[in-house]
Every structure is written in C-alpha cells, then in structure tokens.
C-alpha cells in the first residue's frame, strides 16, 4: 500500500513539475518584457533586470519560479489590476468559486443518484428510458446554455431569482448558476450510478437480502447503493475538470467575481501572468483530486494497488 501511494505521489509531483516547466517556458517566450516603457534607458532596464533577477540564466530562474510558486507567490498582474499581487487577487476570489462549485456538486450528487437509482430499480418501466434521455440531454447541452436559459426564464421572465450574481444576496443569486453548473454532474452520475446499480441489483447478496424479507428500500439503500457507490469515486476527477470548464463560462455569464471569471478576463485582455497562475491552480486542483481518488480507490479496492494502478 505504501509503495502504491508513494508511486502515485511521485507521478503527481512529476506531472505538476512538467506543467510548471511548460508554463515557465510560455512566460519566457511570450513576446514583450515587463519593462517596455520607452522612457527607460538601456542602463535602467539592465538595473531593473538585475533587481528582479531576470539577468540570471534560465535554469536558475526556473528554480526561483518553482520556489516562489511553492511559497504562494505568483507575481503581479500586468493588465487587469496593475502591480496587484496575483495571490491576493486569487484569495479574494476563491470563496465564491468554491461556494458555487460545492453547491453544484451537492446538487449533482443528490439528483444524479436519485435519477440513477430510480432508473435502475424500475428499469423495466418507462422511468429508465426517461432518465437516460434526461441524462443524455444533460450531457448534450453545454452548461452555458442551461445558464442562459435559466437566467432568461427565472431571472428575466418570471423574476424569481436575481439575474446576475450580487455579493449582498449571496445565497439567492448563487442558486441559478449552481443549478446550471450541476447539470453535467447530474447527467454523469445518473448514467454511471444506473449501470452500477443494475449490476449490483443482480448480485447474489441482494437476492439473499430479499429472501431474508428485508423491505425494498432497505435492500436498495443499505445493500445495493453502498456497493454501487464505490466505482462512482472514479468519475470525480473528470467531473472536477468539467466543473472548471463550466465555471469559467457560468461565472462570466452571471458576472460572479470568481476564479473562472478572472481567467476569462485575463485571456481576453492578454494578462499572461494571471492566465498562467490560474492554469497552475487548475492543474494543481485536478492533480490533487486525481491523487486522492487514486489513493482512496486503492484503499477501498485492493485489486487496483496490486495491479499497479494503471487501470
């Protein structure tokens, strides 16, 4: 087990370093320099370069870069808020993004499991094709379409919720974006849990539980669901990527002051430093999630760690 954990951790760290290296290269070879003011003389630029360590060889700068990132220092923003430290910008934006993301995941897990169980338990009635149609719709329609649709109907037409996000009504104005963001998780979880549940419901121990005379909901919730839940862990990491992708767009539609919104703005105004810092944060979250999922899965299912975890 320890060997497995160490191996996964090393792979994750190497991946992260590779990503930092690529990001560093992009920063190096981007056109322009931080000091392109025409009033600066050659001598002044040399002094500035020396002050910020830009005259050192590339590999030393790379080490500096990694060390700084580990300290949480991503440098300054050039365009969006001049000379504002990026870590400060990120810190003030994290809570909103996490709030919306968590709400979306919770909604996704709840309704996804509900639909999946519904479809699996009554899988010879109309409920099964209905839920599979629903989950296919959820997977086919991009979250921004849901976002715009919800905004148009609930915000503009029926005026039930605020159209845009506002920090004074954090809860009520966060509902629509969370729902829009949760559509993909709902679809994924419903689809996955359905096929798992169908399989588990045919297992011998379920027949035994039924034969013992347990009530239907006890069999489903206590015996079948618990076993069907295990493989669902594997789709968590891909789901987080989906949420990142979705959140960039949803946040800019609802003008939520979160990370995704900052990312989109930074891309549009070419604030490379910010783009690259957020790219790093996204990679970090994703790789961290994958590592945790892999280790969790290794704990739950011993076959994985024996096989080396390549599956």
């Amino acid at each position, binding site marked *: 087990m320890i060997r497995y954990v160490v191996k996964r951790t090393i*792979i994750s760290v190497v991946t992260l370093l590779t*990503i930092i290296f690529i990001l560093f290269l*992009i920063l190096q070879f981007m056109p322009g320099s931080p000091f392109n003011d025409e009033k600066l003389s050659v001598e002044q630029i040399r002094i500035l370069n020396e002050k910020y360590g830009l005259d050192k060889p590339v590999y030393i700068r790379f080490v500096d870069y990694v060390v700084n990132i580990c300290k949480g220092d991503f440098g300054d923003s050039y365009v969006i808020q001049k000379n504002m430290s990026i870590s400060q910008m990120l810190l003030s934006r994290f809570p909103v993004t996490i709030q919306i993301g968590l709400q979306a995941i919770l909604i996704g897990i709840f309704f996804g499991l509900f639909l999946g169980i519904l479809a699996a338990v009554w899988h010879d009635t109309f409920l099964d094709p209905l839920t599979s149609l629903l989950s296919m719709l959820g997977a086919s329609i*991009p979250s921004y379409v849901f976002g*715009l649709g919800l905004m148009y109907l609930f915000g503009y037409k029926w005026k039930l919720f605020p159209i845009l996000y506002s920090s004074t009504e954090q809860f009520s104005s966060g509902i629509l974006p969370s729902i829009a963001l949760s559509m993909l998780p709902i679809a994924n979880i419903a689809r996955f849990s359905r*096929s798992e549940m169908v399989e588990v419901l045919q297992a011998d121990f379920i027949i035994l539980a039924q034969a013992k005379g347990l009530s239907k909901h006890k069999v489903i919730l206590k015996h079948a669901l618990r076993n069907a839940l295990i493989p669902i862990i594997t789709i968590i990491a891909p789901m987080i990527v989906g949420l990142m*992708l979705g959140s*960039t767009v949803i946040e800019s539609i609802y003008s939520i002051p979160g990370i995704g919104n900052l990312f989109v703005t930074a891309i549009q105004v070419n604030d490379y430093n910010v*783009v690259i810092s957020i*790219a790093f944060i996204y990679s970090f979250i994703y790789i961290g999630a994958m590592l945790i999922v892999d280790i969790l899965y290794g704990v739950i299912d011993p076959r994985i760690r024996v096989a080396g975890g390549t599956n």
Partner: protein
Amino acid sequence: MEYESSQTIYYDFNKEAFLIADKTKKVRDEKKINDTSVFREFVSKFTANKGALIGFFAIILICIFALFAPFLTPYQYDQIQAANQNLSPRIPGVESLGIFNGKIMGISQYEKTNLKNTYYFFGTDTLGRDLFARTAMGTRISLFVAAVAVMIDMFIGVTFGLVSGFFGGVMDLFMQRIIEILSGIPSIVVVTLLMIVFKPGLVTIILALVFTNWIGMSKLVRALVLKQKEQEYILAAKTLGASDFSLIFKEILPNIFGSVIVMTMMSIPGAIFMESFLSFLGLGIPEPMASLGTLVSTGYKKMMIYPYMIAIPVTVFVILMLSFNLVADGLRDALDPKMKNV
C-alpha cells in the same frame, strides 16, 4: 457411475416418426446462417435502436442544411448590411401562422424599415448579417472542426496505442509514463495555453482538440491490444510465422476496429462541445467566420431583447450534440456492447 456404464442402452426408433427429406425444398437453417453477415447484423441491431436511428437522420438533415442552406438565401454569411440589422426571423408561408413573422412584441421589424418583401429566414444579427447563412456556415465549421480533430485523434491514438501495447517492454513503460503525465494536465489548461501561444483560428482549434483527445483513444487502443495479444488466434498466426506487420494490420487491427469507431463517434460531441466553449471564451474562430459556439456567444449579449439570435444556433447545436450522442450509443450497443461507461 458404475451402475449406468455397466448397462447397455438400446434405443428404439419408430420408423414412422421420421420422414425422408424432400431435397427439392430449401433447408432454412443453412439460409439463415449464410444471411447474417457481420454488416447486416450490425445494420439490423442499429436500426432496431430507435434513438440511434432518429439521431442518424437528424445528423444527415443538419449536414444537408449546412451544405445547401447558403444556396437558399441571396445573402452571404459575411455580408454586412447596416440598414437591416436586428431583424427577427421571417419565413414566407409560415409567417401567417404567427411564428417566424418578423415581429418582436407585436411590432413588425420589417415594416418599420420598408422591407416588406424581404425575408430573413432566421433574422439578422447586430451587423445586419443574415443569420440563416451564418448558422449554416457555423454548423459547417463546427462539424468540420470536430470531424478533422477526431480523425487526427484516431490516427495518433491508434498508432500510439498499438505501438505501446503490441511491442511492450521498455518502450511501453516509457510511453505509459508520458501518457500518465499528459493526462494529469486538465484539458482546459492545455487548450487555453495553446490558444494563447498560437493565434486563434481554425488550425489552432483543431490542434487544441487533438491535444486533449488523443490520450483517451490511445489508452483504449492499448488496453484492447493487450487483450487481443492473449488470444489464441494471435498465437496461431505467430506459430505460422506471421510478421509483426501482418499481425498488427491483418489480425489485431480488424478486431479492435469496432471499438475504435465507437470511441471516435463518442468523442465527436466532446469535440463540438469543447469548440463551443473556446468560442465562448473568445478563443474561437475569429470573425467574420462563424461557428455554432461563436454564434451563441455573440447572440447571448442581446439575449434579453432579441432571443432569436441565440435560440436558433442553440437549437441546432443541441440537436447536433444529442444526435451524435444517440448515434454513438447506438453504435456502441451494435458493435461493442461490452464497452460501457467509456
């Protein structure tokens, strides 16, 4: 058991119970076996799936629309007519039914500007460009981008997976580490970085899609190859002295091709999806070209006043995505029912 084997069993046949076969009649069993070719079996399975069939026809319809719609309208997709801006959809014949009549909140946009005999089937955008032509163009580009990206993907993924799975050893180990590291990078990061380094455009988008998609394909192909390698027919071919070349191309590839096709089909909606996201982020196809994603992202800015500007491209987009998903599911069930949850 001893008791049974010691006895000799005699069977009595009743001669009358049997008839001499009429050789002039065709025997049905043989016919049945001959008839079920692999392709026919696939077709019958696929057509039995109603959803897949509907999806298939919807895709064909959308392709026809994308190809021929520009000929139905006198306007070009990039033709700017400032006087005709923000006209809502109006279709001759249909307009008397109360829909597509060129009215917003009961006011005809066409009468206001003296365009009584002009018809924009899907309306015009804020620059007065015909949305019918633009939607067709956008569909064309979205389909093109997805198809090309997925084809390149398939090629790279299959090659990588085959080499890695078939030859194994140090090469496989090395290639798998590469894959492991690459798959650790979230797709959104890869895509945005690529789009920043290169100029936004058709080629860059295709490149970005290829970069994010080939890994899944190569993982699948490798797993399939590893499974096939254990089969007896490979051992037989090897014993007969087949070269690696013929083993790969004549034995393994035909056997995994079904799954590869299914996987390819399944990644098409993903590619269309990703392209639209990029367009939405402003990293998509630059103007005056259009894709479904750029149409949606320009339409949404005017959504509250002119809902048709976003409703039409979104409808086409959703139908397209849904159909591809349905067809991919149908293909999977028909070709490779074991491949679930991929």
